[in-house]
């Protein structure tokens, strides 16, 4: 009898323990499902317009460049396309510097900018080749988007746009269909895990309308029929400094640190209508996760998976002395420097 009672007690404990387990499970499961499965990060940042009066577009793209670099995406995984060189423009009173506001608060040009496509290389063709991976033979490795199935890709576009297109340079434009096709081809070849598409241009929302690929989250500075506005003029250079949307985006990103808990959901609300004047458009229907639970560093930072490994393979193929033996080390070739006189003084005499 006592034994039976004991069994019963045990069974009850068992059941309650199981209940406890199942109560815990769903949340853990949801958590796991919400966590990103990416293994690396890429960023494609494009400024599509040139000429001095478009200073603000260069400042836009450099703002995002500065942020992703600060948050840890290495230069080898950032493709920067800038159609014009504002830092070294003859009209720039502060050579080598590009600022995001008239008070010269942040020099977005920074110390170290690696531009992958510059000037007339910024074309629709090159951009689509970059997205689809169909680069021409001889394209340098640093100019390719070498993402894989584990890559989270950030695409940022800025320039002058209209309903369904974005103008490149002053001669051509990319249509929303071409963009959607390019991204679909990336998806088909498993070249991204998740994609965050950001665009700051007039009627920006029209650019993401045709997307059909899964796992794409898109944000645009203005809806169709709206203009995106610039933030302010710097009287000393005579042009607009930066666009409103990117200005507030940078303001937000400056507060983000590499291990920050800030989410993409918060980032999507950086520019409410009262400050942006245009309405920020967001497209979430292709995106699987809840943006409020996605850390912003899933797209703007880079987490390289590292793992301490202290194993060794116990093979010894030579004595230590063999390597330190001076005979093996080839002596540096001696060379003599001859300084040729630049001006022949003798003739002058």
């Amino acid at each position, binding site marked *: 009898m006592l034994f039976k009672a004991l069994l019963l007690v045990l069974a009850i404990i068992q059941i309650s323990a199981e209940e406890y387990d199942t109560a815990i499970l769903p949340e853990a499961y949801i958590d796991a499902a919400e966590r990103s499965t990416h293994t690396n990060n890429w960023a494609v940042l494009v400024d599509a317009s040139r000429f001095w009066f478009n200073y603000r577009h260069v400042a836009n793209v450099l703002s995002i460049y500065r942020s992703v670099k600060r948050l840890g995406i290495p*230069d*080898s995984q950032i493709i920067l396309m800038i159609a014009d060189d504002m830092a070294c423009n003859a009209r720039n009173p502060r050579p080598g510097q590009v600022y995001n506001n008239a008070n010269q608060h942040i020099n977005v040009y920074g110390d170290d900018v690696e531009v992958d496509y510059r000037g007339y290389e910024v074309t629709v063709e090159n951009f689509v080749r970059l997205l689809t991976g169909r680069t021409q033979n001889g394209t340098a490795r640093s100019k390719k988007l070498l993402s894989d199935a584990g890559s989270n890709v950030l695409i940022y576009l800025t320039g002058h746009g209209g309903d369904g297109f974005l103008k490149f340079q002053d001669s051509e434009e990319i249509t929303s269909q071409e963009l959607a096709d390019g991204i679909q081809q990336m998806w088909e070849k498993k070249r991204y895990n998740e994609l965050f598409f950001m665009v700051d241009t007039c009627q920006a929302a029209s650019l993401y309308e045709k997307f059909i690929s899964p796992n794409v989250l898109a944000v645009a500075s203005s809806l169709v029929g709206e203009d995106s506005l610039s933030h302010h003029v710097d009287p000393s250079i005579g042009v607009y400094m930066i666009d409103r949307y990117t200005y507030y985006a940078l303001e937000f990103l400056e507060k983000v640190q590499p291990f920050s808990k800030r989410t993409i959901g918060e980032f999507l609300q950086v520019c409410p209508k009262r400050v942006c004047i245009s309405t920020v458009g967001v497209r979430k229907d292709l995106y699987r996760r809840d943006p409020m639970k996605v850390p912003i560093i899933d797209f703007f930072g880079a987490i390289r998976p590292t*793992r301490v490994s202290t*194993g*060794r*393979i*116990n093979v010894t193929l*030579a004595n230590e002395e063999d390597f*330190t033996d001076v005979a093996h080390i080839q002596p540096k070739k001696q060379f003599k420097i001859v300084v040729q006189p630049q001006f022949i003084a003798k003739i002058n005499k």
Partner: protein
Amino acid sequence: MWWKTTSVHRASLPSSAIERLSDQPIKTVVHVSIYTQQPERAQLLITELQNAFKDSDFWIVKFKQLPPFAKAAETHTPAALEKLLLQEHPQSEGDFMFIEWPKLEDELLLTTERSALMRSDVTSNKIAQLLHSKILQTYRVNQILSTDERISVKSEAPQPEYDVVISVLNPKPKITNAQWNVALAAQTYIEPFLAQISDISSYTVRTQWKYRVAIEAEMKQVRDQTKLGRHYALQESALPHLLTSIAQNLSGSISDRPVINLVVYIPPCSTGPLHIYNKKNEMLTRDGVDAFISPPWGGFIIANPPESVCLAYMNDEPPQQYYVNTNDNMQVMLDQLHKLLDISNEVQVAGVKTVDIEQLAPRRWEYEAYIRRSAIRHIATASNTLQSLIKLLDQISYIVIDDKVATAIANSHSDILAAKAALLEHRLMNASALAKRAFVFSERGFFDASLLAQLYFPDEQKYAIYIPLFLPVMVPVLSSFNMLRKLLDRKRKVKQP
């Protein structure tokens, strides 16, 4: 004529055959032989194992019993027994053998060749578990072939070519006067090792010294009992950022091949010796090794200078010249390469022990599992690539398909079929070579630059451009027809009356 000159050249492709590629699953034949002292036991194990593998999605495992023989009783070492067995029953690539050895400590002992020793009381369950987790690596193959994006593998398939760049970083050569013939070290260890595993990818080894490349990470001083009285702690969480800070200076992007970086970092005595600490503030150094890896980027070894060198620095003596220990660092580097190339298998199974590697080559079963996995990976990736390319080409009718792309697609398709057949016919190396070729061809086809040439000239634009051009031209032509008709009518009227 206008229509003909503007029509798009599209070579014919085996579209329907490529779409049918996924109908036929990838199945691999593996031969496993079992030797026991009592034939009944082997018989029993085989029946049980055959049942266990009956419903396998990927494997067709053919079990074979090795009959006992007289000489077996005379052998005193497992190695000798294995040798005798191999003389009778030679193995080919990808095969495996279980040999009973009653005096074994563990239930199963994996050798460095294609065999495992088993104790007499091992259950068939354990053997099946070992086969799945270590030899066949079913869970990894599952990841490769899974269509669920949360499970599926996130890394790239093995590329046909890699650059292996060994970089020695010495940020302050004036403080740490380190000497090392790193080129010779690479020739002695790394190159021969890579030469033995170059069936899937070929490797080019380069070495370089980099001075004044500082790592950006917070290093905290920690007091200790050594003569120096202190060492520096590097937080584990700071490692990813550290790699990003040095990656730019390694100039790996010069060549067109993907790079595997192997970094040996010599900390200057001002921040050395340097050790890695985890979040719980525990030192992670084992056997004097401070190293970490970040696949697929590469590995990082901290080669602390000897105590005497840093002691001299602390006493403000002139810097001592010293040699970096080659054997020590190369052993760690070899282990890192095993992990980076994804050859080593780190799954632990209770009761199973694995013999340590004591030669340069990887364990044969491990390497063959890697080849098998890579072959399956290449076949799966190439099939996916071809299918998505066909889908794309069918969807967009104005993409040019030139003969080069068409040949690449056709070759890749035939190689996929051949590789699948080779896996079924138990020709592993052949299958691997075919799969690799199929993969290379499919990538070449998909990423061919010519596929984009006329993307900006779709049919609608053709009408939009040519109709306004040709229609005005057609007006005088058409009106001249009218004129001719009138002329003929008039002539007839003249004739009739």
